């Protein structure tokens, strides 16, 4: 075997604390190494050209590159090696940057460690075998989870690209949090006006199948061939017949149903349509509050409904869809701010969240756009906005900034002045974050034109003064004094966390998530919409806090990834999968029992029972290889011998 070893300087990143020339020199002495040199930038154009030239010149049949993490450039170098005519799996990498040069300054120890890492890479390469990928056909359909603005954008782009879309939305209507907003910053144009048309496009697009009021139950399979079980929750209304006329909502006797869409700012009826521009504009019955379903006697809506769409015996259905890849766009929820006992812990009716205030501002909200105090229904005169409630607060485990609260608070302050000209708004802030286009100018307008008083300081306590108003005690750090404001209404800019149920969904998607429930992208800077699981993409706040423009662009980005994936007819599978050595297998069945993907089955082979790997299902985890007592099943590119070679190289004392 003739192996080429290339030690990369990576400029000074490696060269700074590792003597690359020395490592190359030591490498020449390793068995089967025919050529060893060091390069300034092996991943750059000249570097790769040098490797290809060396392969031809020295007739190499295996390459080891010692540079950065294989997680970043292994694919790059595999293509280089392939261009030079070698099998792309006759290649190994030694990580001498993140694991060596960047974590210590002791040049002698680093050089010695780098040499050893190169040695174990060479030992593994000497036992590598060429592998060829097999191709399998893909199911060119995409599942999009979450019908918020990011999901809608991704769905429209994919559908326009000719890919059939399955859009699953947990609530009764798509639109997500944006549909609940009255106006959007920085242009203060009406949220429903800019979102409505897109929602209608989704409803009318031939390529999009919409499952509203449904959740993803289970996902199995792998990129190109996902099988998804969707649970359609019972709406008790036959949507094929319902025309959305709303007759039932007027007549429904159960008027006290908590209205989740309006963030519980007002009651609604048990059967209702979330808001006028809802898509699908169909009625849904809230099972816990419908007298017919709870006590078994009422049936008013069934009598009133012109098309007889009401069906109390409706059961939930499980629908199975076959898709090729998945986009998660599940958005966010406001964190539970009642942990702040000092702000009343939810006991004071006039202390509300920003989303609730949006519903009060919205013409389709419970108060038809009039700002009224939840306690006594009067118009407030002093409105106090408090920023960073549950953001940038380590003491309750929410150290991150939620990104868009400063902007929507400025907008809400402007709208408050519009709705109630003689009102006075105060904003308690720590630092105003207005990074986008026309963002900071917008906050300046809120202060200068609309007279909003921005007070830099945290609010220490809110308490009722006994006769209906709220005393907000804080500090003005710029003045260095305590501040007390008698407020009629307090709006909290509540921090953001991933929407409820995100961790469970992440486990179904087999992607990792952080401690706040946000999904983990493949690379925070370079691959924000991809995940470590092939075929699963992200869009919107489910990946991290961001405002509407960023969510929309991520929707399009995810759609671009989907279209790129489906550009090819066939997908190549990863050849690093397990294979059974028929003669060694005694059919004890241990591998079949422990394979997480059920990718091994029993077959008849010359009258004897043997195990066999289903190539398209095997993901290459290797659990079977470490379970089989007689080593009959070996994971390609990570066989027992290859790993043992590395262990022996390190531990031969």
């Amino acid at each position, binding site marked *: 075997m003739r192996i080429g070893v290339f030690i990369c300087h990576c400029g000074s990143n490696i060269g700074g604390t590792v003597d690359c020339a020395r490592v190359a020199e030591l490498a020449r002495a390793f068995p089967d190494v025919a050529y060893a040199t060091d390069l300034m930038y092996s991943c750059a154009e000249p570097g790769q050209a040098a490797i290809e030239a060396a392969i031809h010149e020295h007739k190499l049949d295996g390459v080891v590159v010692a540079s950065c993490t294989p997680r970043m450039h292994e694919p790059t170098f595999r293509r280089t090696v392939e261009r030079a005519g070698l099998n792309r799996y006759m290649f190994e990498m030694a990580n001498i940057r993140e694991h060596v040069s960047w974590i210590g300054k002791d040049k002698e120890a680093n050089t010695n460690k780098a040499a050893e890492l190169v040695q174990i890479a060479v030992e593994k390469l000497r036992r590598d075998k060429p592998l060829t990928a097999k191709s399998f056909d893909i199911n060119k359909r995409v599942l999009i989870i979450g019908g918020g603005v990011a999901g809608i954008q991704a769905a429209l782009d994919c559908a326009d690209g000719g890919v059939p879309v399955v859009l699953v939305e947990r609530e009764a209507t798509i639109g997500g949090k944006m549909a609940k907003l009255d106006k959007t910053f920085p242009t203060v144009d009406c949220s429903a006006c800019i979102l409505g048309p897109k929602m209608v496009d989704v409803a009318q697009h031939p390529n999009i199948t919409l499952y509203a009021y449904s959740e993803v139950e289970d996902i199995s399979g792998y990129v190109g061939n996902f099988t998804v079980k969707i649970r359609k929750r019972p709406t008790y209304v036959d949507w094929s017949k319902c025309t959305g006329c709303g007759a039932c909502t007027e007549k429904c006797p159960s008027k006290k149903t908590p209205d989740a869409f309006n963030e519980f700012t007002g009651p609604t009826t048990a059967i209702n349509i979330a808001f006028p521009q809802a898509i699908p504009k169909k009625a849904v019955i809230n099972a816990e509050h419908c007298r017919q379903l709870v006590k078994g006697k009422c049936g008013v809506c069934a009598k009133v409904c012109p098309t007889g769409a009401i069906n109390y015996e409706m059961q939930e259905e499980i629908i199975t869809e076959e898709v090729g890849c998945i986009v998660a766009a599940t958005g966010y929820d406001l964190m539970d701010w009642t942990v702040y006992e*000092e702000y009343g812990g939810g006991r004071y009716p006039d202390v509300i969240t920003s989303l609730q205030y949006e519903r009060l501002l919205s013409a389709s909200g419970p108060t038809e756009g009039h700002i009224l105090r939840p306690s006594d229904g009067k118009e407030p005169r002093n409105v106090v906005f408090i920023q*960073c409630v549950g953001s*940038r*607060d*380590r*003491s309750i485990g929410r150290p991150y900034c939620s990104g868009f609260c400063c902007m929507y608070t400025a907008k809400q302050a402007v709208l408050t002045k519009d709705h109630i000209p003689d009102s006075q708004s105060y904003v308690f802030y720590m630092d105003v974050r207005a990074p986008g286009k026309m963002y900071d100018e917008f906050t300046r307008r809120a202060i200068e034109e609309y007279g909003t008083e921005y007070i830099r300081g*945290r609010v*220490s306590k809110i308490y009722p003064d006994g006769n209906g108003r709220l005393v907000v005690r804080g500090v003005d750090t710029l003045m260095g004094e305590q501040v007390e404001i008698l407020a009629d209404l307090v709006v909290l800019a509540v921090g953001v966390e991933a929407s409820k149920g995100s961790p469970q969904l992440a486990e179904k998607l087999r992607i990792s998530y952080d401690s706040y429930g946000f999904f983990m992208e493949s690379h925070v800077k370079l691959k924000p919409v991809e995940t470590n699981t092939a075929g699963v993409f992200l869009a919107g706040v489910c990946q991290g806090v961001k405002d509407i423009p960023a969510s929309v662009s991520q929707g399009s980005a995810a759609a671009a990834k989907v279209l790129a994936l489906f550009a090819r007819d066939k997908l190549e599978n990863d050849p690093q999968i397990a294979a059974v050595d028929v003669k060694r297998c005694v059919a004890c069945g241990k591998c079949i029992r422990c394979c997480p993907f059920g990718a091994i089955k029993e077959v008849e082979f010359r009258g004897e029972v043997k195990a066999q790997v289903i190539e398209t299902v095997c993901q290459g985890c290797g659990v079977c290889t470490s379970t089989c007592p007689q080593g009959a099943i070996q994971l390609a590119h990570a066989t027992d011998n290859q790993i043992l070679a590395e262990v022996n190289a390190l531990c031969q004392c």
Partner: protein
Amino acid sequence: MRGVQLGLKDQVLNSRSLWMCLSCSTCSLRCPNDIDVAAVMETLRHMARKEGRVTVPKVEKFWFSFLDTVRRFGRTYEIGTMALYMLRSMRVFTDVDLAPAALAKQKLGFKPHVTPNGGAEAVGRILKRYEERAKREGVRP
């Protein structure tokens, strides 16, 4: 806190707010970065007192009056504390308006309560050792 961050030692140790602090630790409870502000204030007070920089002397005088009665009787003797405080701070009229009501309700007993079987002396020794150690370490008690 900003002063401490910037290391403005003199400005911090000479500030009045050190002595106006009620040490009720509401600040530590509400700090979003989990800083024990109350402990910082307490330490600053100790540093200021040990370097003799007491910007509001009457507060310290009250403390010493309180501790003197504890040293003498093992337990506080309210009348004694008030008397010593008035002597030290020359603010003879403090709470005089409350005296009649307090006496009528037997809130202020004339007889000091002495810790029995040698307790008072033990407390006295504690405070004496504290002062000796403070002098040994060249620090104002």
